[in-house]
């Protein structure tokens, strides 16, 4: 009996020791440096949308091989992160926190780059860009603001840019008796067009806008800010450095959403709208099936219908159009767009910063930078991309590029993520009829004031 007890205790002790050792040893397995054959391994991390991801395909289309041939001492390892937009941010931040897991190059959404820079996750690239002749002349100047931290240092190289507007189905609009090409002059004309489609074409969703908070930042940028920046107000006052949490423009923007979803009922069904994949459903299913007439979305979205896209449409230019989104009352400059995009950054904890920069320079040279945006249907951050064959003759690129002239950017502030999250939740509540526009303004004011402090907000 005694012996038995002893055996049990010993087994337990051994088992716990084993547990402890395995728990401790697992931390070391993923160190970035010191890869095989004495080569420096550069890990590059970006958000992938799955096996058909265009960026992954682009990397694997010979780009990496070419670089590795020219630089035999460097090995490039692509490490895509399969995640939703919101999850991607937290995943890479957690990776960047430790030198064991930090990638050497990371794709950063320009909406979060200032926060990550302020948190100390990113390496300033001022010296590198100073020694890079392309940086000064070839990169579009106002995109550089998007990668500049609050301390004035450069934390990334812009990789893609984009604009937003109204995608529409020309055939459906013509059937409803609306003018094609569609060019609404103000908000009322957009709403009126949606109402006409609802009356004339039952079974067709008139206008899709991203309102489900599961769609993350898209709600703030593609829906709310597209509206707000077309009024006379903005979200952030650059002069006073305060957040404008209550303004006539904000109330009107909320009213627009309420009108679309609850009064006119010309938006998508809530089941679609609140789905995290609302954008994909619109562009991969509803538009190609002729069940959706208009959608406010990014300039890249149309590439879904190209020959190599997720849902190809034949003769796409004849069937689908891209219109500028109008300002509230048609005030100057008539149209409005928000521009964002992604940048490449080097994490502060990266073990191979020099090799990483070398690859980054290669990645962002005229040919490769343009190759990527052509593959993805994005706009290029380089002004010399127009000289590369195949860039401007892509369908919709000219329209999207033209919009850059009226483009506004998200507030350059590391608290943006907090405000944006509040807005996502509020926009969803308005669209689903749980919150009136007036209460929404009040709620935004209360919540942002509570999160950021009285001294960071103002009322217009």
């Amino acid at each position: 009996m005694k012996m038995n007890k002893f055996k049990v205790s010993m087994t337990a002790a051994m088992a716990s020791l084993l547990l402890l050792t395995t728990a401790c040893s697992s931390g070391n397995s993923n160190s970035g440096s010191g890869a095989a054959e004495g080569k420096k391994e550069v890990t590059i991390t970006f958000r992938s949308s799955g096996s058909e991801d265009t960026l992954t395909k682009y990397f694997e289309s010979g780009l990496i091989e070419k670089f590795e041939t020219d630089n035999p001492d460097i090995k490039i390892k692509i490490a895509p992160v399969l995640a939703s937009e919101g999850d991607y941010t937290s995943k890479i931040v957690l990776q960047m926190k430790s030198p064991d897991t930090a990638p050497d190059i990371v794709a950063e959404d320009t909406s979060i780059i200032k926060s990550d820079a302020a948190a100390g996750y990113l390496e300033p690239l001022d010296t590198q860009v100073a020694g890079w002749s392309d940086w000064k002349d070839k990169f579009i100047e106002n995109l550089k603001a998007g990668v500049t931290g609050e301390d004035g240092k450069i934390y990334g190289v812009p990789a893609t840019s984009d604009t937003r507007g109204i995608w529409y189905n020309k055939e459906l609009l013509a059937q409803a008796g609306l003018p094609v090409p569609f060019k609404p002059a103000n908000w009322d004309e957009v709403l009126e067009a949606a109402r006409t489609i609802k009356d004339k074409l039952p079974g067709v969703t008139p206008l899709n806008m991203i309102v489900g908070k599961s769609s993350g930042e898209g709600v703030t940028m593609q829906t709310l800010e597209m509206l707000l920046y077309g009024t006379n107000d903005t979200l952030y006052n650059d002069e006073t450095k305060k957040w404008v949490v209550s303004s006539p423009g904000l109330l009107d923007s909320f009213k627009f959403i309420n009108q679309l979803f609850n009064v006119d009922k010309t938006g998508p069904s809530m089941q679609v709208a609140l789905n995290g994949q609302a954008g994909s459903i619109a562009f991969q299913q509803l538009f190609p099936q002729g069940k959706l007439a208009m959608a406010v979305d990014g300039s890249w979205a149309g590439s879904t219908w190209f020959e190599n896209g997720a849902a190809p449409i034949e003769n796409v230019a004849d069937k689908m159009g891209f219109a500028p989104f109008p300002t509230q009352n048609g005030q100057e400059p008539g149209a409005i767009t928000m521009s964002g995009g992604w940048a490449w950054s080097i994490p502060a904890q990266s073990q191979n910063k020099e090799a990483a920069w070398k690859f980054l320079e290669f990645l962002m040279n005229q040919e490769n930078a343009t190759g990527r945006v052509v593959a993805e249907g994005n706009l290029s951050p380089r002004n010399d991309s127009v000289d590369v064959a195949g860039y401007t003759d892509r369908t919709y690129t000219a329209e999207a590029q033209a919009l850059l002239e009226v483009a506004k950017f998200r507030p350059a502030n590391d608290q943006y993520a907090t405000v944006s999250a509040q807005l996502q939740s509020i926009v969803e509540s308005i669209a689903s009829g749980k919150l009136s526009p007036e209460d929404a303004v009040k709620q935004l004011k209360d919540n942002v004031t509570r999160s950021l402090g009285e001294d960071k907000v103002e009322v217009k």
Partner: protein
Amino acid sequence: MKRKSRGAFLFLTPSVLLLLIFFIVPIILTICFAFTNMALTGSAARNLQFIGFQNFTNMFQDPDFRISVWRTLVFLIFSAVIGQVVLGFILALLMKEKNVTFRRIIGIIVIAGWVTPEIVVAFCMVAFFSDNGSLNQIIGWFGISPVSWLFSFPMVSVIIANIWHGTAFSMMVYQSALDEIPKDIEEAATIDGASNFKILSYITIPMVKGSIVTNMMLVTLQTLGVFTLIYTMTGGGPGTATQTLPVFMYNQAFVNYQFGYGTAISLVLLVIGIVASLFYMKSMKVKV
């Protein structure tokens, strides 16, 4: 005697060490972080500061927090207490002393819900409740027009999902407890002329009281932690309609990147769990 106890302590060391590393330290850290401005990104991520009760003051002023507590209670009462505990008991009672084949068939059906992982349950339920889902097809046969269940009745949908998922556990606990009751006691009561209801309320339930309390506690704590199911089915929405505390906590920590605030919310969740457990023990006068 002394030597013996020293030996015992030696053998206790690994388990104490494990407890310390995997339970006690995380709990202490959680409590500490709840009083900081810990954030995932932004300047706060660089300067971790103790901010006293700021997170808690913010929380109690936050209308979203109050809504979440309310949603959590509704979810808890309907899906755990009423749904799983009562339904599980009724099922176990109905199956008592039925023939083995019958018990097996019912058992397999109910347990199917329990062995299915939460995320799979969530996807099944989305398929069931969605616009073109099974439920709408079924009611379509009776000429009823489809309903957007997840939008119009989000809370009811997630409650049903959780009941489907969890009832088997209660049923099994009660089955084994009911089987333990000696047959002759109930038979004696029957001979004395007691009605079925009287037997149930004066004999059966008091005799399985311990199991009821333990089960209620387990089910409550499990339900307080339900996240995957709700997050997958509704994402806490529409608006805040199904935003229970775990979903609210996740949103604060991983969407707003406010870890300190999220941790403070998790502490409140812990307190609710403790209070609920104490309440059950007290109200049923059971010592566990």
